């Protein structure tokens, strides 16, 4: 189709965006940072209430403590963008860690241990994805609930219910090592986040994920390989659970069937706190990370402040709710400021 460039003359008129920074546009720029703003607020409160909070040492701890949730949240985001859910990731961590530990006991080869854990994660993910697609299941809740249960049972059975101690040095470093106060796992999280950010914003596959989530039937009609996209997303979620298993078992220097318990709930909560929607098609990697760190920071701060163990769940609930509610207000303000800026200019 040849291209012409008729200037627009119909349709509602648009105000040109203003050039001079006016105060609404400054406020807008600030407010637009989104959930990050809420995280900064939570961090500010934590820093005020507990002086140690902002020490590099503690920040290093927060990074290390949040790495697993963050890794799972990045992958869970993609799943949720496709209208899905992956409940199996916690159990997958347990299974992959146990498989890794048993491999290490058997052969003591670092590459084999790493491969075994990644492979286990990927395998569970592939079962989820193909089960969903080929089984024509109405929703991934069921297949991932099933693999949650099966992976948990397998981990218990393989491990004989016992934790198995010992992990290769490199794995221990990945999970527990650091450069100065910056844990290696934080670099891993950053690398994975950047990779997924690139995939979701710059690569065809990322575009397809949002298309499938926004309109699955439309995606099919547009010849997007919907089944392939779904399988790949669950496979990636499983693979990331395998990576999370490496971090967990490296950090704890063991593989145990109790690892990762309820980690899926943390991951899903992180994604939802970050503003993604179960109705699909919406959500960003950055905000999922913010959600993960929101959870991590609150938990860490309460420990630092020695909040009564009975009270901790109450505080967590209230803080999460307040943070999300503030983000709702923030969103409304953003829309208001946009209009104000448009009117002023």
């Amino acid at each position, binding site marked *: 189709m040849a291209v012409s460039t008729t200037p627009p003359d119909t349709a509602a008129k648009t105000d040109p965006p203003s050039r001079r920074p006016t105060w609404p546009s400054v406020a807008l720029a600030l407010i637009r940072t989104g959930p990050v703003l809420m995280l900064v607020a939570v961090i500010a409160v934590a820093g005020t209430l*507990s002086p*140690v909070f902002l*020490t590099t*040492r*503690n920040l290093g*701890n927060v990074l*290390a*403590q949040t790495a*697993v949730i963050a890794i799972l949240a990045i992958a869970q985001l993609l799943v949720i963008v496709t209208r899905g859910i992956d409940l199996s990731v916690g159990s997958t961590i347990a299974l992959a860690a146990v498989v890794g530990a048993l491999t290490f006991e058997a052969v003591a080869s670092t590459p084999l241990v790493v491969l075994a854990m990644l492979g286990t994660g990927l395998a569970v993910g592939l079962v989820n994805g193909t089960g969903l697609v080929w089984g024509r299941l109405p929703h991934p809740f069921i297949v991932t609930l099933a693999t949650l249960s099966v992976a948990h049972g397998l981990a*218990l059975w393989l491990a*004989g*219910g*016992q*934790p198995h*101690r010992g992990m290769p040095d490199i794995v221990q470093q990945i999970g*527990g090592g650091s450069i100065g106060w910056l844990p290696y796992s934080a670099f891993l999280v950053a690398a994975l986040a950047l990779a997924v950010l690139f995939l979701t914003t710059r690569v065809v596959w990322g575009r397809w994920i949002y298309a499938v989530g926004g309109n699955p039937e439309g995606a099919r009609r547009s010849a997007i390989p919907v089944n392939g996209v779904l399988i790949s997303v669950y496979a990636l979620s499983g693979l990331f659970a395998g990576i999370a298993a490496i971090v*967990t078992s490296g*950090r*704890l*220097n*063991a593989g*145990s*069937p*109790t*690892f990762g*318990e309820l980690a899926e709930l943390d991951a899903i909560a992180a994604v939802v706190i970050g503003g993604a929607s179960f109705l699909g098609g919406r959500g960003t990697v950055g905000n999922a990370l913010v959600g993960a760190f929101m959870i991590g920071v609150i*938990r*860490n701060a309460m*420990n*630092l*402040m*020695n909040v009564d*163990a*009975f009270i*901790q769940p109450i505080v967590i609930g209230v803080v999460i709710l307040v943070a999300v509610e503030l983000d709702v207000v923030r969103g409304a303000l953003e829309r208001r400021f946009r209009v104000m800026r448009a009117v002023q200019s």
Partner: protein
Amino acid sequence: GCGSDDPAAGSDSIKVGFITKFPVDFYDTMVDAVKKYDADHKDVEVVFGQGKSGTDDEGVIAIIENMITQDVKAIAVTPTSPNVQGALDKAVKAGIKVVLVDNDIPGWKGKSSVVATDNLAGGKLAGEWLAKKLSPGATLAILQGRLGNPSLDDRVKGLKQGLGTVATIVAEPATDCDQTKGLNAAQDILTANPNVTAIYGACGPPITGALQAVKAANKKPGAITVVGFDASPDELTAIASGEQAASVAQFPAKMGSLGIETAVAAARGEQVAATVDTGTEMVTKDNVSQFK
């Protein structure tokens, strides 16, 4: 015998239930001991059951009810809490003997015997040991288990009784007996209270996590007095190497074999002791070799 298809399980074979709380190594050791008993005794058939978590009252009750349906003659059970006593009453009413293992249900009349450690006493033992070891002005952090789990709570309660006023408690977060949560909590405690003198844990996994935090904080092994409960294999290794000071040992294998023996005896109408104390013992570097 270990199944109804076992030819050796004749008409005089007797069916007994053995119920544990949830899948952790502690109960695994216990169940292994009972399985061994089962294999060695052709005239006894043991049916097993296990809950989902340390507080899964409903799950344990369902198993009790199902065992009643299966006409077992006795049940040995590690009660998740006193809340299961209603179901146990039903069993007793159906003529089934009930032996409590691991934990008692204080004040419940229906039991034939209790084969258990006294968690409160175990905690007290640790408290008294720490009281002797620590100097006044010391600070202590407690890694609690799962909140609302009576036996785990008793270990903390007992510790405080035994400890008296020797040390100030600076933190007592819940860890759900999870190693990761124990590590996280210990990291945070060491950040907020770099000079903490001692750490006590109500169960094994968080103590293992705490030892990692101590190491990561560049403390000398043993600089902080770490005391655990359960003397898990990991703890024993740490005690031997001097990283961990002590742990309160229970004897799950003993609980298992004595528990099943008592249950079988009760089922056969024999007289059984009202309490069989399987004992607790302080494991330290001095005696750790006996526990390995």
